[in-house]
């Protein structure tokens, strides 16, 4: 992270302006960085008030995205709310941390409508439940009954090995080649996914 304010500022006073605005809310640290990307570290309980303030007084009308990051070693999820002001030409990323269990947080759908999409996505992929969201249902993973797949403990390769059989690929045309000592160039022990049947595993 760049800890110095860059010199090519689009709006040089945006850092001071944000500091002034954010005095109204407790629990926010605001390290300086490049003028068009501001980072706020926020206490989880202060976030809805912060976003309401940024949207209302701060002209940050555009919710660009909500990103979830899994930090299993800390036992926490990080939620990052990227909001943009078209007037100031600045994107502010507000970072909060919530405990991994029970993995619940508040929906901001009433402040930013696009949050409905991102919260549903995070609910599916990370299993974080957003209270107050109208859309806590499946969208992309309709057929999925496994654990939330984007969590770090979810092992894609392990899941495949546990739930699917590998098929041997020996069509007739290949058998002739194999009889002559040829065949698929990669030796089986070098293949990324070994040909393992479910019973062996």
């Amino acid at each position, binding site marked *: *992270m760049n800890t110095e304010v860059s010199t090519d500022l689009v709006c040089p006073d945006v850092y001071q302006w944000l500091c002034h605005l954010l005095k109204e809310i407790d629990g926010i640290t605001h390290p300086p960085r490049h003028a*068009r*990307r501001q980072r706020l570290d926020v206490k989880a309980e202060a976030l809805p008030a912060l976003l309401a303030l940024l949207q209302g007084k701060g002209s940050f*009308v*555009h*919710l*660009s*995205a909500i*990103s*979830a*990051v*899994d930090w299993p070693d800390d036992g926490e999820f990080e939620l*990052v709310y*990227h909001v943009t002001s*078209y007037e100031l*030409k600045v*994107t502010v*990323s507000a970072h909060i941390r919530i405990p991994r269990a029970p993995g619940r947080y508040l929906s901001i759908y009433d402040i*930013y*409508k*696009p949050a*409905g*999409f*991102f919260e549903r996505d995070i609910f599916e*992929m990370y299993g974080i439940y957003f209270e107050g969201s109208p859309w806590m249902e499946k*969208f*992309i*993973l*309709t*057929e999925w009954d496994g654990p939330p*797949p*984007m969590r770090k403990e*979810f092992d*894609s390769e392990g899941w495949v090995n546990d739930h699917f059989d590998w098929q041997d690929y020996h069509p007739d045309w290949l058998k002739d080649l194999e009889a002559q000592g040829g065949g698929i160039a990669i030796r089986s022990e070098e293949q990324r996914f070994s040909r393992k049947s479910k019973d062996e595993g």
Partner: protein
Amino acid sequence: MRAENYQARHQPPSHEYELNFGPNHPGIEGNYALKVRLHGDIVTHAKADGGYLHRGFEKLMEQRLWIQNIALVPRICVPDPAPMELAYSTAVETLCGLDIPVRAQWLRVLQMELSRIAAHLFTFGGHAATTGMYNTMFWGVSDRDLVLDLFEELTGGRVYHIYNIPGGVRRDVTEGFLGRVAQFLDYLESRLPDYDNLFFTNQVFVTRAKSVGVLSPQQALELGVTGPNLRACGLAFDVRRDDPYLVYDQLEFDIPVEQAGDAWARTLVRRAELKESIRILRQVIERLPGIPGPIRAPIPNPLAWNVPAGEYYARVESSKGELSWYVVSNGGAKPWRTHIRGPSAMHAVQVLETLATGARLEDVAQIMFSLDACPPEVDR
């Protein structure tokens, strides 16, 4: 969605019925579906149904080296893959503190604008086809093919270029390439009056597209609309201008705006953007030969490359709107987290549901194509 997972809405008896619009339907873009509830031919409720194209890119990227992901990222959106490469590369470069050589930045602009032209030609074709005008589709696809020829020469790949890598670009222009780009631009410009006659000012299309799928500026801001769809509501916001990257701040171009906010206005904005892209490319052709220098910054051994810990939110303007990429590194050899915010994540879900509700069934396809929604950006 499998049949056994489908739950019919329990409603009191009425004249309404539900219709599955997609995933196999000529009026839907890609593998995507809408569940529409109809009263006569008026849509009373629309629900987007995605997931048919989910390939788990974000998870896959966490399991691959920083450099390996370059081959993966353009595959997220087929019609306009170049901005995906750029957004990812920019994020990695910022995390590493790499300075990109000026010549590489110009080459990237060349790739971005050619890709924008290709994507818009493709969209016009699809959009025209929803009104039964297949000629425009054939023209659009065949003219797009000329751009793909240029891409093949520049990058080696027609659709997926894998041209941007963290640090710069893979190849310089070949001899005579810029001349061939100039020729293509002249050809495309000479074609535009024909396109106008055939499609943009054709009364068959204008009557069909006017006042269909109207977005007010207020609605557009509330729903997170970006790109040409936002500019069709009279709001001149463009990441290239507001949050400049590469050398866009040294280039002269206008941001076309329309006021009506309907399907026709959105099409006209894209039509005007073609002209702006041609204008930008002509400046690139003029100035690129005078810009010396390498096309790549030196990067560490890419197979043993630990990107410093940090996070960055990279934004670029794709042909569909604001494309952002949030990349987190914990100092390891693979990304800790990448999150893609495709513009269509908004346009194909909430915006489409809002605009389709109250529309006539025959306008649904046209609304979707006028939004230029790219379903793989929703599913990833």
